[in-house]
């Protein structure tokens, strides 16, 4: 075989590979959209109690949602707004979830950032919007006091009356701001 022809063949191959990878990216972003759409559909029709979310405007990568505090907990009767931002390689990396309403909680900081293992190192592609929201809902009632973002809240957790006051104060304040 002549070397020239080999060379040309190899460049062809390179080109081919490039186009393939290009098409893969497009396909991927499509598949992310499809995944998000089907997650939305799942959420819409499963309607877990106290949880709802919807894409913000027509951009499927940004969602807004609301979580109602679980019954029988301190957060009972309060509804918290959250935003979810999905990365372009979702579901291989976790979405960025933040509280919009100020949430006085050991695992939530002043800016609404959340310390939840499944949103960080324990993220897996099997989680979805519904499971995230359900986990967050249960996190409200069962905080992880061992690794607090808000140490004050973690300390006060043992005193429900004081704690509740703080929760209500912050909740009202941020609702007024809104």
């Amino acid at each position: 075989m002549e070397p020239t022809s080999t060379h040309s063949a190899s460049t062809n191959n390179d080109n081919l590979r490039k186009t393939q990878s290009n098409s893969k990216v497009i396909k991927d972003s499509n598949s992310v959209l499809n995944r998000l759409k089907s997650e939305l559909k799942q959420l819409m029709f499963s309607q877990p109690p106290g949880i709802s979310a919807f894409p913000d405007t027509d951009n499927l990568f940004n969602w807004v949602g609301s979580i109602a505090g679980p019954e029988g907990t301190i957060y009972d009767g309060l509804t918290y707004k959250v935003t979810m931002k999905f990365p372009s390689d979702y579901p291989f990396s976790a979405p960025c979830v933040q509280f919009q309403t100020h949430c006085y909680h050991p695992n939530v900081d002043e800016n609404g950032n959340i310390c939840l293992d499944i949103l960080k190192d324990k993220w897996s592609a099997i989680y979805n919007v519904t499971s995230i929201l359900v986990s967050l809902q249960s996190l409200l009632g069962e905080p992880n006091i061992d690794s607090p973002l808000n140490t004050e809240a973690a300390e006060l957790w043992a005193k429900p009356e004081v704690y509740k006051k703080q929760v209500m104060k912050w909740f009202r304040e941020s609702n007024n701001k809104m």
Partner: protein
Amino acid sequence: MESLEQQWSKTILNLNQNKEGLEGLIEATKAWSVVANWLNPNDYDINQEIPSDVKENLQILIQTPLANRLVEWYLDVVCRNFRECFDEKLQQWRETWVQLQKDNVKSPDKDQIFENWICKTYIDFIQSIYSHFNKCQHPLILMIASDESMKEFLIRYHTTLYLSLIDKSEPYATIPSLFKEMTKVFYRSYFRKYENLIKYNPPNSSDSSSLLLCKAKQPDEKFENILFAWRSRDDINILFSKQEDSFENEDNSFSAMELDDVDLEEFDVDSSLGDGMKLEDLNDQIEDFSKLCKQMHSLDLIKRTNDALEELLCDEIELRVQNICKGTFDKPMLRHSTKWLYSTLYPWLQIIFSSDSQLSRESIEDKLVTWSKRLNYHFCMIFCDSRISELFDVIVDFPDSKIAIDDLIVCMRRLDKDYRYRLVESLHKAFRKRLLIPGAGTMDIINTYISTIKCLRLLDSSGVLLEKITGPFKNYLRTREDAARCLVSSWMDDKNNNNELIEELGRTEEPIDNQQNVRFNDDNWLPDPMDAGPDYKSSIFRSADITNLLVSLFDTTDLIIKEIQNQMASYLLTKTDYDTEKELTKLELFKLRFGESKMSTTEVMIKDISDSKRIDSFIRSNDNPLRRNISESSSEEMILHGTVISRLFWPTLKDEDFDVPEQIGDEMIKYDEGFQIFKPRRKLQWLKSLGKVQIELELQDRTLEFEVAPIYATIIHYFQQQGKWNLTDLAKKIKIDPITLKGKMNFWSDRGILKELSNDEWMLLETAEEVDPSKRVFVSNEENCDNIIQSLAEQKAEEFKMYWVYIENMLKNLGGMTLEKIHNILCSVAEPSSSNSSVDNNLEDLKSFLNQMVVEDKLEFQGGLYKVK
């Protein structure tokens, strides 16, 4: 006069130099006075011989240079004399006219009075002026005046005459061209007379006009030639020439044709023959008219009243189109009117022109050609206008009105393109006013559209007009929910034998979806016409395929295909003999139209039915092991036939669950078991409310047969055991809602079999009751075959219910939003439930759904924003 004096002095000077001249001068002066005296127009008499002394003196004068002076002087005298003679008369004439108008404002036949008066005085007037003219002209001839002075005489006389006729002085200046008006009336009167003469006494073949008729009844092409291509004198030579020999053969057919048209002529407005006039009188009058025209020619009045003449002829043409052509679509009115033009109008014009002795035959013909060209064009315009204004009626009458369309085609070809737009505009207006209104049935609209397609196709093969007309239909039919249903149901309807749509459906040219493909290798490709609109798709509007055009009224074929499925489903479900031949034929036609893939669902549906036949016969046959056992034990025949359908491929069927009588329930179980053997691991789900039951009711005094829906059979079944039932008890037994049941009970009470006693107590009527005929309710079969398929509207509502979750969540999380935004987000976010999601392209539907939700108090609508409650 000064110049004359100067001339005199010059002459005298000349004469002074010459003694002979002086004598001549005296002689000439003498002669002048004698001649001038004789020339006084008031005393002049043409018939009298010229006195000898005058003659001598005239001879002397003619030889002197004074001859020219004499003519000049004479012209002045004539003009002055004219005014003396006629000014007063004209004044009187006008005053009488004004008075006459005042007196007869309210008189019912004032037109007739005017006409009579005008004709009489007009003729008198022309004649007296003419005799005056002759009287004045005569001496000039005797004077052997030169050509120039003759000409000058004519000009001066005519001008004086015309100026005094169209007097601009007060108070007549306020009356717009009184003289013109009178001339028109005068012409009209004689035109009518001539028309009558022609009508009741058609000229025989030796007359010039009949040649035109022979010509006019040639095939269309030639007839068009007469109307439009008549441009050269050669043509008119043929038309007006007196060589009739070659046409004699056609005489018989010609008279037959004339008879044929008599009924049309009866519409004519004029009926002067009825007033006791005789044909001879008419003939005489026309001859008089011809003479009068001659006089008018000498007075130059014809030329000066050309405008009145043209106006009159245009009016007459308009009148004719209005009175005779309008509203008649099934006769070749264009040809008929052309015949009238050439047999009546132009010959009459010929009478006027040919009476001019000054003109040669050729120039008369030239004149006629010019006039006829102009009038033909005018006629075309008027005719076209009239047809365009009534085009809607023509379309409604189509195909009976095809002749009218043909006429219009001929006319349009002659006229500007501008008329195409006028046509479109007028048709638009008519449609908006008369068809696209709530009062019109959808089927009527569709049928009219079909006629419109056919008519406009004839008028314009490129389809541009059609495209322009299609818009309003499209927009309007979009608001009609039943449009697709109507269209499809007429496709499905086999009972109507002359169903155009079915015929058209069979005439497939190419599948609808292929229309967008531009075929680059098409040798017959033509660019789109210049005036085509943006929506113009040449292939669809050029091809004569009505079905494709109808389908293109809808934005997508999906709606139609869904409707086909629905209607096919109801057709198939009513079948008891499993015979799907007809449906298969339809399916093949639909496949050709819409493509195989789109019709696959329908195909499965039809196949289900033929499969059911096999399944049913297997279950009933002895091959069925279960059946074998039964037939051994008892000779009982299975009374149940089943239709097995694949749920996924059928439209949602309405099912009301209820309990069938035990016996039937057992049959169902047996059937199910049989099916299990035939197709293991499949389960039958009975749609109990569908189907048909044949029942025979044996009552005491009568036996009745019915074919009813299962629910009715069930009801009557229970009355078999017990003659009286309480509604609630029966409802419990059948397991349906008592209110629904009550409605169903009415089915039997309408037929005189059950009777409501009171308090929901129902009784079987073993013996028929006398029913007061006035109270007899009209029993419709409608109830018997309730619409079993969910209508498209219901399906749509169902679909929106699914979206409701999305909308609710959206509004909850994102706050109030406008309709457009909701729609946008829904489109991009929601996963369509089926391939043909209605949300995607239907803002209107979404709006009505949201408004429905507002009504149901689930949403609130404030300031353009929808919010969750």
